[in-house]
């Protein structure tokens, strides 16, 4: 063991050392002048700290402090909050408790980042689609992509048969839906059918609505 390790023993001697450590330290002190000096100075500083401990601060007029405390408590009791305020206070106490704060901040940061990421992705996707849609009228586009249309019809019909018992309420215009799905988005729109939840797509339409609108547009 070197002097650095003994230094810790010396500073924490007051806390009590195990017998092994104590005898190791005693043996080391006999042969090491610098550690012996350190031990002496720690003992001297311990004496000074003891002297400081003896000089307790003096509380001038303790009666006044008691009076102030009791007065504040009486005031508190007269303005005691009702049950509702009490619940709010308890909630706020809990909400602002030091151990909850970092968790709340982390969750908030994660949610904001996730929302911004989703928004950006979605905006980029929609902007791309809209740019492409500007080039065609619906009929031109459908005519130019007859094979895709057939693919969609077949797939939609298949899914429709599987889901014919579901209720159908839609808000997307059939032609817009057709444009949208014609751009190869159909697989994305169906992702949630395969339990791959996609919040933005789910908001746009449900599978049964999708099928109904699609079959309407192809009548």
């Amino acid at each position, binding site marked *: 063991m070197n002097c650095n390790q003994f230094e810790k023993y010396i500073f924490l001697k007051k806390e009590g050392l195990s017998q092994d450590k104590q005898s190791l330290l005693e043996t080391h002190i006999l042969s090491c002048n610098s550690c012996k000096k350190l031990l002496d100075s720690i003992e001297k500083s311990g004496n000074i700290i003891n002297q400081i401990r003896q*000089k307790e601060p003096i509380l001038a007029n303790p009666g006044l402090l008691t009076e102030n405390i009791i007065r504040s408590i009486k005031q508190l009791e007269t303005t005691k909050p009702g049950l509702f305020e009490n619940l709010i206070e308890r909630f706020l106490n809990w909400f602002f408790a030091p151990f909850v704060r970092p968790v709340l901040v982390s969750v908030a940061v994660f949610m904001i980042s996730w929302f911004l990421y989703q928004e950006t992705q979605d905006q980029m996707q929609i902007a791309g689609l809209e740019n492409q849609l500007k080039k065609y009228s619906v009929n031109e586009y459908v005519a130019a992509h007859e094979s895709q249309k057939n693919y969609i019809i077949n797939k939609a019909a298949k899914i429709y048969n599987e889901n014919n018992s579901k209720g159908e309420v839609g808000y997307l215009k059939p032609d817009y839906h057709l444009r949208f799905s014609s751009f190869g988005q159909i697989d994305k729109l169906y992702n949630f059918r395969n339990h791959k939840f996609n919040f933005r797509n789910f908001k746009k339409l449900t599978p049964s609505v999708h099928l109904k609108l699609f079959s309407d547009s192809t009548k």
Partner: protein
Amino acid sequence: MVQQISREIISRCKLKDLVAFQKLVEHYQSFAYTLAFRLVCNDDDAKDVVQESFIRIWKHIPEFDSNNQFSTWLFKIVTNLCYDHLKSKKRRNSLSIDDLKSTAFNFLSDKDLEENFVNQNLIQVIESLANQLTPKQRIVFILRDLQDLETDEIADILNMDAGKIKSNLYYARQNIRMQLEKMNLI
């Protein structure tokens, strides 16, 4: 050593008996003040901390487990309030080493200092020794070396394990020894 108050008083306080609570305040306020004063090194701030601590105790005393020591709970509340205070207030030491040395020397050698003088000099002495410490080191040093509490009790008060307390204590004592050396007191 803090003399514990009777269980009966605590039980009455739990039932929101203000007379019993006044007895509790009278019994413990000087202990709370001594700790708060040593930690924040300011008379008014220490009194504010004591007042706020007893208000908190009044609010939460029905939840206090009578099997635990009341003084530990009180010290925990006082220490937490002082810790917030220490973190929010940037302490400064405007005295030179020579001034500090003479204050410390007079303070330690004179046994009949007047009340105001004791508090004023005590502030300077504690500040001069503990000014360089982090709030945690300062609290551990004061609880252990000035309040003379056992490591277990400090662990309870600070919700810290004994290893961390010893490590804070080690750095605090190392620093204080350096300060004392600078003042040629050791």
